[in-house]
């Protein structure tokens, strides 16, 4: 197990390095300097600005200097917001995005796996068709459509919940969390249904039933462990998708989270901010993928074996 974790961690390092390198040079390759769109400034000011942002150095030196700073946890100053560092901006938006993602993931896991398991218990009956049809709607209805629709119905027509913001009025966290979580709940429902169906036909469950265990023990103690495996391995990619999904949800509900900062940075051509956020989010995603792999391997020894081979 430790060998697996060690190897898997070693593998993550080149990925993160590749992300940093590719992003750095892509951003540097972008046409137009960060200040070229501003009003004309005197050459001295221009030079001072470039020195401040290290743009006067050759690209390779800029890159190594950036790596050194990054290792110290410093992502440099923002191009767009003078006097503010990228670290500061990320730390400001991160807690909000994390909270939103956490609620959404919670909704996705609970609603998704419960409806998937319920559906799998009586396949091809109404108990199966109804949750699975709803899941299909969840998959086909993009968050940027679901969010506004929920706002229109619960925020405007029924006037039950606030339509935007985060933590400013009671209940304003409900709609964004549901909007973000819905699609993943749908995926998880489908994954857990198929996972459970596959496990249900296996011999060890027949044994469990044959020795007279009550059905709920069979399902909770024996079937779930195997049946939920696809869901566990989906959680890593789901986390990545949740982060990018939060871009839309934060835009729709005007939530000042990391996703909204990223989109704004994209529009403002705030290159250091784009670079910093990309590196930060990618690292987060790689780490989360790693964790989900480790949990999956812990639950399923076969995966460990395959990898060590």
């Amino acid at each position, binding site marked *: 197990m430790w060998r697996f974790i060690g190897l898997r961690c070693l*593998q*993550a390092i*080149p*990925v993160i390095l*590749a*992300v940093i390198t590719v*992003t750095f040079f*892509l*951003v540097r*390759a*972008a*046409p137009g300097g960060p200040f070229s769109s501003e009003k004309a400034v005197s050459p001295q000011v221009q030079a001072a600005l470039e020195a401040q942002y290290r743009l006067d150095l050759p690209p390779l030196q800029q890159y190594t200097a950036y790596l050194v700073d990054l290792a110290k946890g410093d992502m440099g100053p923002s191009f767009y917001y003078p006097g503010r560092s990228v670290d500061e901006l990320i730390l400001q938006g991160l807690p909000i995005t994390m909270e939103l993602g956490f609620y959404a993931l919670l909704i996705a896991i609970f609603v998704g796996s419960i409806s998937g398991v319920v559906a799998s218990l009586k396949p091809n009956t109404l108990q199966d068709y109804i949750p699975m049809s709803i899941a*299909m*709607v969840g*998959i*086909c*209805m*993009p968050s*940027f*459509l679901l969010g*506004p*629709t929920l*706002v*229109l119905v619960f925020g*405007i027509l029924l006037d039950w919940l606030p339509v935007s913001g985060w933590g400013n009025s009671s209940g304003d966290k409900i709609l964004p969390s549901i909007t973000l979580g819905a699609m993943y709940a749908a995926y998880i429902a*489908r*994954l857990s*249904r*198929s*996972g459970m*169906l*596959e496990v249900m036909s296996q011999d060890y469950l027949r044994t469990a039933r044959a020795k007279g265990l009550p059905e709920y023990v069979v399902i909770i103690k024996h079937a779930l462990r195997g049946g939920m495996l*696809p869901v566990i391995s989906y959680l890593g990619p789901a986390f*990545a*998708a949740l*982060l*990018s999904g939060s*871009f*839309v949800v934060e*835009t*729709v509900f005007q939530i000042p989270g990391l996703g909204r900062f*990223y*989109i704004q940075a*994209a*529009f403002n*051509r705030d290159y250091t901010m*784009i670079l910093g*956020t*990309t590196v930060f*989010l*990618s690292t987060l*995603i*790689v780490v989360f*993928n790693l964790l989900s792999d480790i949990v999956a391997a812990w639950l399923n020894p076969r995966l460990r074996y395959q990898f060590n081979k």
Partner: protein
Amino acid sequence: MSSKIDILALDDGIPKGTSLWEDALVRLRKNKLSMIGLGFLIVIMVLCLLTPWIAPYGYEEQNLRLGAIPPSAEHWLGTDTFGRDMLTRILYGGRVSLLVGFIATAVALVIGVTYGAIAGYAGGKTDAFMMRLVDILYALPFMIFIILLMVVFGRNLLLLFLAIGAVEWLVMARIVRAQIQSLRQQEYVEAAISLGLSPAAIIIKHLIPNALGPVIVYTTLTIPNVMLLEAFLSFLGLGIQPPESSWGLLISYGVETMEEYPWLLIFPGLALTLTLFALNFLGDGLRDALDPKASKD
């Protein structure tokens, strides 16, 4: 010599059986949801293809006096704030959305099939290296990278196709590689090798045609993903740019004015959702028909 004749004679004697494809077609026809999906898609595609000839109004035809009016006899789906006919705009938007869906999927298809086939055929270290690369790319947050590409290189349609296609090929490569790897062990491939066929000829003529089932299934399921991705980017203002239009863009306009004019959100939203529905149902049906072993997830 005589044995060859015998085999030929034997071949002629066998009545023509149903091929794999005919079998699959029969299974697909039985799946009602898939057939409804297919029918809906054909209607939408024909409408979008013929848009310039059948659209009731001009694409940029404004009627400011009208403003935004709800659906009526003259304007079946209402008009937007500039008095432009929504049905016309949705049809034109559909052209772009579907085009992106098909072309980006084609890009993914070409890259994925080529890459997967080479890795699967080569096997050994080449295969291990190529697939590890896919694993690594798979772990990257591509949404973020597409946004980055859009920012760095400007927002043009061609780049959008390439960027989305370049993201979606990974799973395709895995599927094709797994197929080719198992097919490679079969005797007919050994026979082809001993006959002196080049690897390229074997892959193209003998291996890929036999791996087509899963590829078709996955292609059908990739198109809705790609369309969703395009709509997502357009919604954020990073995809299709006006005066071009797409369903994602129409939805983002609809959201701005949904309190007063909900039909500006509802109709493009319905167009996108129903199309995605149809594609997913068709994809599920094709999977059941062509690849009965694959689990339904």
